[in-house]
């Protein structure tokens, strides 16, 4: 008996453990994170999820220059930094294994997932304030349209995802045509225009009615649907209260980054929610009064710099040619061109200057193009000269419309000068087909003493109008086919 008691005790202990512990040890719930089952329940959850959609673009926007400026004649990769895949973009030798296109694909579809999640769960909460449900729908649709617009411009036709899809479904999904993607974009933007509030009724950095109108106009221009483009942009110019600010340089200052010219911009705050782009363009040795160190990933091409006419105030706010080292602030400046558009005083890697997506000067130039293509060259010239006049501060440099054989060349040139480093140049060259001629040669580093630039010969090809679909995605899919030429 003396012996069996402890056995009993032991067995009882084990039995006790069996029953009481299992639940406490195995069926635990996370204490610090929500899961899809308890999120998306309130209007505030949806608001948070919408901010999550913007966050996706905020993350990606900092490196968009690698696919949207580097291949064109505004920018080339510096010898001091290496970013995987950027050399191939710079020399127009991109292949399907490119790391930059792979990352772009992933983050953009992640943004689409986030926008879809908002739209799929929008009906769950019942406590929306007045107009907020419409606003969230409008924002999610605007963002989804913007993501698809970026995708279709970078890759051409891509899989259309508007639902939560399983891995099996995803692997079976083929590419939609460019037309189908554009149809979705137009549909989303049309609904967004109907649902979004006016720009002054919503925080800066969030989508407004004007942003959706402007983006839709731009989409029509890319579709070369000149009639709709003209109508849409005209409506925007007439109805909405955007205007060009008088001082071009003030667009790139922290205190005036929110202004009447901005239709949609990606917001950043120095230090806590900053962007890397300012640092990427800052010379390694830094800039006096701006940053003591930069990453100097890329440098401005002479192809762009030589086009600025004397008196064009945009030049100084876009590129600077003479550089002083913050380590030797009293030394003679040396010839060392760098991109200055985003050069504001900033913390390394976390600059507060916003990266615009759509501003009024862009709209006016698109409008000018739509007008010209619709046969109204006179009005087209008026719109074009609005931008021109602001750049020089007077009308003496205004175009007469006869400066070039093709009026669209004037517009394209003005777009390059006005929108350099705003992620428009490569797409402009592609949609007009000019990349085949313009990009055959790029003038890069300029030798100030010898007055000669370094000339790089490139071989742009028809198929390069879109980038290759990332090979890793093709390998994981049964439905995805590679773009022609790759």
């Amino acid at each position, binding site marked *: 008996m003396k012996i069996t008691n402890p056995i009993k005790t*032991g067995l009882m202990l084990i039995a006790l*453990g069996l029953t009481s512990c299992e639940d406490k040890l195995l069926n*635990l719930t996370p204490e610090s994170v929500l899961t899809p089952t308890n999120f998306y329940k309130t209007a505030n959850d949806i608001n948070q999820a919408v*901010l999550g959609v913007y966050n996706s673009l905020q993350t990606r926007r900092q490196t968009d220059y690698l696919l949207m400026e580097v291949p064109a004649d505004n920018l080339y990769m510096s010898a*001091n930094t290496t970013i995987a895949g950027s050399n191939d973009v710079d020399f127009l030798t991109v*292949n399907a294994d490119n790391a930059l296109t792979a990352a772009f694909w992933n983050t953009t579809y992640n943004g689409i997932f986030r926008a879809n999640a908002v739209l799929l769960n929008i009906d769950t909460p019942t406590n929306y304030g007045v107009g907020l449900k419409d606003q969230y729908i409008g924002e999610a649709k605007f963002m989804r349209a913007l993501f698809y617009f970026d995708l279709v411009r970078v890759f051409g036709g891509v899989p259309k995802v508007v639902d939560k899809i399983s891995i099996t479904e995803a692997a079976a999904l083929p590419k939609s045509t460019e037309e189908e993607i554009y149809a979705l974009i137009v549909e989303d933007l049309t609904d967004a225009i109907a649902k979004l509030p006016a720009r002054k009724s919503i925080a800066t950095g969030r989508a407004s009615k004007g942003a959706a109108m402007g983006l839709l106009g731009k989409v029509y221009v890319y579709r070369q649907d000149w009639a709709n483009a003209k109508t849409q942009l005209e409506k925007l110019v007439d109805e909405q209260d955007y205007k060009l600010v008088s001082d071009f340089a003030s667009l790139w200052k922290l205190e005036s980054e929110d202004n009447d010219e901005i239709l949609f911009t990606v917001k950043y705050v120095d230090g806590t929610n900053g962007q890397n782009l300012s640092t990427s363009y800052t010379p390694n040795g830094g800039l006096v009064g701006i940053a003591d160190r930069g990453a100097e990933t890329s440098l401005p091409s002479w192809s762009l710099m030589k086009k600025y006419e004397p008196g064009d105030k945009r030049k100084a706010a876009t590129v600077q040619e003479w550089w002083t080292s913050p380590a030797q602030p009293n030394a003679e400046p040396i010839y060392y061109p760098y991109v200055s558009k985003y050069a504001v005083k900033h913390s390394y890697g*976390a600059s507060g200057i916003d990266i615009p997506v759509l501003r009024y000067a862009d709209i006016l130039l698109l409008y000018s193009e739509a007008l010209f293509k619709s046969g109204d060259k006179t009005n087209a010239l008026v719109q074009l000269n609005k931008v021109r006049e602001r750049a020089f501060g007077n009308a003496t440099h205004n175009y007469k419309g006869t400066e070039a054989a093709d009026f669209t060349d004037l517009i394209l040139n003005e777009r390059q000068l006005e929108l350099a480093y705003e992620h428009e140049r490569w797409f402009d060259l592609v949609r007009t087909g000019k990349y085949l001629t313009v990009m055959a040669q790029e003038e890069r580093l300029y030798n100030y003493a010898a007055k000669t630039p370094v000339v790089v010969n490139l071989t742009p090809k028809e198929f390069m109008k879109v980038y290759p679909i990332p090979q890793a995605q093709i390998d994981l899919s049964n439905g995805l086919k590679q773009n022609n030429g790759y």
Partner: protein
Amino acid sequence: MKFYLKKPLLAVMLALALCMSGRLWAQDAGNVSGTVVDSVGNATLPGVSVVIKGTSKGVTTDVDGKFQIQAAAGDVLTFSFIGYKKVEVPVGNQSVIRVVMRQDNTVLDELVVVGYGTVKKSSVTASVAKVENTVLDQIPVGRPESVLAGRLAGVNVTQNNTSPGSAPLIRIRGASSIDAGNDPLVVIDGFPGGSLGSVSTNDIESIEVLKDASAAAIYGSRGAGGVIIVTTKKGKSGKARFNFNAYAGVANAKGHKDWITGQEYYDYAVRYQNREYKWIGGDTSIPVWNDSRRPNAYQVSDVLKNGNNVIWEDAVMQSAAIQNYNLSVGGGNDHVRYYVSGTLKDEKGTLKNTWYKNYGLRANVDVTVNSVVSLGFMLNPSYSKRRFASADINNYVKFPSFVAVQNPDGTYPSARSYWGAVVSGQANPMATLDGSYYYGTTVNNLGEAFINLNLAKGLSFRSSLSTNLASNTTDRFQASWATSTSLNSGSQALSSTTSIANENVLSYTNTFKGVHNVSAIAGASYQKYNSSSSSLAAVNGSFNNDIIHTLNNAIINPSASSSSRSQWGLISYFSRVNYGFKDKYLLSASIRTDGSSRFGPDNKWGYFPSASVAWRISQEDFMKNVRPVSELKLRASYGATGNFNIGDFEYLGQIGDVYYSPNNTLTKGQTQTSYGNNSLSWEKTKSYDFGLELGLFRNRVNLVLDYYDKRTSGLLYNVSIPSITGFPSSLSNVGSVSNKGFEVELTTKNLVGEFKWETSFNMARNVNKVEDLGGVQERITTDTYGMGWILRLGQPMFSYYGYKIVGVLQNAEDVKNSPVLAGSVPGNPKFQDVNGDGQITSADKVILGNFQPKAYFGLINNFAYKAFDLSIAMQASVGAKMYNFENEYYQGALLGAMRRSLVDTQWWSEAEPGNGMVPASSLSKLTYQSSSDAYIEDASFLAVRNINLGYTVPSNVSQKLHLSGLRVYASLANPFMFTKKGFHGYNPEGYTGGEIAGTGSKPGYNNGAAPINRVYTLGLNFNF
């Protein structure tokens, strides 16, 4: 009790009598002296313990094997000595005794800890390795794992990071998991999941390693990476025995010998700039300095030859003092036994301003209440603090030599303060080292209380409750003058974890009819792990001054601050049966089932069975006459183990914080951050092991051979999924990896006379292979600079993947006529055109080797002559490849520090083509070589890890000092390291990219692993 209470007087008298008895008895005792000799060769044996049986009274033999003791005629003297059979001699009327001791060739009766029990070494049916702590604590290494390097076959201990206090990497029979970790489970005195860093080597009794799955299966759920069992010292009955061990010494980093300075440095800088200038079509006849026709970016300032000649490696390194002290006392009586110890460790780093301090205590107490009940507890609080550098060493040593270490006014010049352009924009390395206050502290306590009940003959029950409490703090502050951005920064990260385990084991052991040995266990284990962490960071540049380093002096950055809590739970039931027939046929089988909270609702439970058999052929009658064979055993085993080392709640899609700043106001948003996978379950490893154990010539030669085949399937693998789902990958149970290999352990007693020589050699070969990736053939991770790490079917995990260099493009003609990467210029590599299509594309990438060694070896030689002993430990590794990306810094880039061996073989121009295989190294063309085998180097090595020379002071001398043993020793760690020609790293095992830790792993990537330290120490160890 009653008895004493009723008759207090009697009790006092009894107690007095007891106290007195020793003295009374001593008076009766006479002087007994004698000599102890070895049965072979009659060599005298120093250090033999001579104890009067049943007492704690004893002495040890001196250097000549002589002893002297007070003993009475009725006493029995017990002679014991490690490696020898115990001898008992009744004193009788002898006054001089000559004792002959025989070497204990049946070390087979040694007990081996196998997890929830011990087994006689001869009865072990699985592959288990054991290291006893005889003098391991007298080898000056920072952590206990390090002493295992090269000592056990199949246990690869790699010192990736040599900075003070860093943990080495341990891999037992190769790595098999991609995302769920490959670290072995560490069991400290029965507590699963401890950290070896918290245990003092001095306190370790033995370390057992369960290598095959049949042994590790008893830890089922967590044994896939093997199991390391640490047993700490326990007190023994007898008078208090103190041990003091101390060593102190100095460590020196083994640096590079080929840094260049002055004119030589300047000449290469000019070559570098001219080569760059020529590539963009420049005229290199234009003077390199002070001629505006040459763009600034292509000039070379005169300061490069007229400046200082600083070798930064020398400037940032120092001779570092290390010291270690341990005092322990163990003793007790039949009822209570104790072992208490304290350790103090203080190590300076060879990189300036780095150090490590550790204070540890241990108390192990065992109480035998009566014949049924015994209980005890263990406590092991420890505290450690380290100061670490803010960056890897390459960031310091790559700095250009023309910059002074410090200005006379105490400020630190940067390279840019000499020359504003081109050169590195980073801060002065000494400024960074002096101005970065990075500290890590750990407070840890592993405690256990247990009760053991002897329920019946052979039947016992043990229940324990253990807690492992740990709290870690990392404080960082960097002064504005210590960084190139001139922005001060700071952060504080706190984490605390509590792990509570309750284990209950019923054990039974018995022998039936004298031939059937049966032992069995059944048990249940419950473990709960809670963690909480918080992290705060300052907005860069927001510290008001550089004086106050805590965050109250700054503005907190909300988007860089976080706080979280998490937990996991584990329930396990297990049972094992061992059966032996006549010690000849042995069988063991176990089953364990584990339930983990980390898996989805329907997949929480995993089952892990094992079985093993052994046949001791040497016990058969027909072998009895085969005299040379003293032991021959064949064994075979099969077992399954598991792995659940993933994050908590990963089966759920999780919602995480993200930020955006509408209206320039930082605002928190939320988003789903993982895809989620409700069917997530255990990763399982099934393995076979076949072993042979052979002892020859009364076990003077011992050979152990093992072959294993282990396959891990249902990998917890972050498998790539189409990113149109919103996520590029999802954790799934997909894929399979195998490890096959063999191990050899050969221990020989070469000389056994007065001059003793023992050798133990081991080697292991492991072949790692990806077997299945869930339907795809391969998966490649490409890093920023183009090197790929590939998972490909049939190949070792994470092989390097890139272009193969076959030469260097010499001129424009060569570029035109060779298959080249787009944009190639003369000086860029000529690659192998694998598919022969006349151009170099990603289709021409090939596997360029792997970070895992093909084989590794250990060799320990122990010599003893009279009072001297000498131990030499060597280690070798063959076939590992390292991606020494670090080389790039020393080849001229940014005109930083250069190494002769990396510049003189390089292509500089058609006239200076180098050795024809090393391409022009340039930042602007970096991917042309970093995506190839240019930096892949053979990391094979042969190292003498430690030489330890000891002298045991003769007992007559030590007794005069009132000591029962005194050994003084000198130790030299890492005296020699031989690497392959063409290896440029500091440490052939040192890589900075981590090992396998998920799909994006870059194992073997080295970008600044610290140098190996040669450590000279003197130590002493004494008992009293």
